[in-house]
């Protein structure tokens, strides 16, 4: 029997969205930082109109696990961040 997990409320979804964006800002690498931000926005935009509650629950839990992955990787990347930044981050 499918578990009766209630679909997330709007505030939970918004909190997840903001947490993902906040975490993405902390990435030391320019490319990964931009990608995480862009992918988060596009994924949430794409899933905005999901109606099937099990699909909503699945997407939300996927988002939460991605947040955990992002948090861990931010730490790992910052431990080994190169001293010199990408040319894209240096004022042209």
């Amino acid at each position, binding site marked *: 029997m499918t578990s009766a997990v209630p679909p997330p409320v709007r505030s939970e979804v918004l909190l997840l969205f903001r947490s993902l964006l906040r975490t993405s800002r902390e990435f030391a690498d320019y*490319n*990964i930082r931009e990608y995480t931000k862009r992918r988060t926005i596009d994924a949430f935009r794409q899933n905005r109109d999901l109606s099937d509650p099990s699909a909503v629950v699945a997407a939300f839990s996927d988002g939460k696990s991605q947040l955990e992955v992002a948090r861990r*990787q931010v*730490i790992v990347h*910052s431990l080994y961040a190169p*001293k010199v930044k990408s*040319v894209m981050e240096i004022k042209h």
Partner: protein
Amino acid sequence: MASKHLTAALRRTSPFRSFSTAAATTAHPPPAAEPYDDGEGISMKGVKIAGRPLYLDMQATSPLDPRVHDAMLPYNLSRYGNPHSRTHLYGWESDAAVEAARAQVASLINASPKEIVFTSGATEANNISVKGVMNFYKDKKRHVITTQTEHKCVLDSCRHLQQQGFDVTYLPVGPDGLVDLDQLRSAVRSNTGLVSVMMVNNEIGVIQPMEEIGKICKEFNVPLHTDAAQALGKIPIDVEKMNVSLMSLSGHKIYGPKGVGALYMRRRPRIRVEPQMNGGGQERGIRSGTVPTPLVVGMGAACELAMREMEYDERRINKLQERLLNGIRARLDGVVVNGSTERRYVGNLNLSFAYVEGESLLMGLKEVAVSSGSACTSASLEPSYVLRALGVDEDMAHTSIRFGIGRFTTEAEIDRAIELTVNQVEKLREMSPLYEMVKEGIDIKSIQWTQH
């Protein structure tokens, strides 16, 4: 919980140099090995740049996706068992991870997990395919068909076979880089043991008509091998539709780790190979040696990610490629795209700039990490054999630049690349007397150069 402590510790102390083992072993790093100036940019091989270049060389290798790295880390830290150890938890959990990764790789190409053999990369997979198949069937089959634009490892394996006494036909390609199907059909003999055609070319990005080639091979009952290192995860691959018997896959081209790859070997009808790595019989005897769990897990994670993200990435990269090409063409003339424009992978753009010298163009593009037509094939200054097979003139082959766009490339990077390339080409053309003559309307090819 642990992460909160770690981030707090990070904020307290500044650079973790005292914890890095590399810094601990070398108190004063030798001057040759330490290229970085502190915070003032990088100076290496006589070139000084303000920051790390923007990366547009995705065909050479790709950065590790953080989600892939996250999947790999536990197997580098606590789950370090050998997957072939049958007697304890370390071996069991490692083996479970390898089998899960095998299923992930197989589902990306519509194959069964039992048909996937992990290797050290696509080069090893190519070697096993070409040399292994021909050596296994050497009594009856003495002929191999391949193309002139294959990767060096396939061409070199074929040359090795020629030295052993086999016949090899190197099919020419058209100026668009595509194989002529009629020529392929007429080249097949009764003793042809293998046809090897790469799916997506690494230099020019051209996609070969694999389904049609597969039909021809099925008609003549010849095994088809394809090097899909550049194609995996980027274009949809279906081994059933393409009738492929052997396929080489690479990990580090799809945002996975370097040092791992896979070989797909069809089971129905079964294709057999002579193993190139002998030993304890791992990987069903095809490739002996301990399977590197962290790398294999990384490749599996990369394949699963690629399956989910393929459509999104392709749409984005297509837009970026159009932006790059239109941006350059809007400000420069004499720009030629090498290879077919219709049948190409969107993330590979190989351009030649007329009336410009290749080495000086690359020297001025130090803030963009790109590859040129000649560099990736050999250490010499010989123009690339792929471009030569296309029939590109030598001077145009020398000025070819390969832009590789990937999942992590941003629009701002494309715009900066356009600006840097256009500026450098304009600067060089301004200095070039040849270009002056062209602008005045003189046809360069009709000039009689005086001999001294």
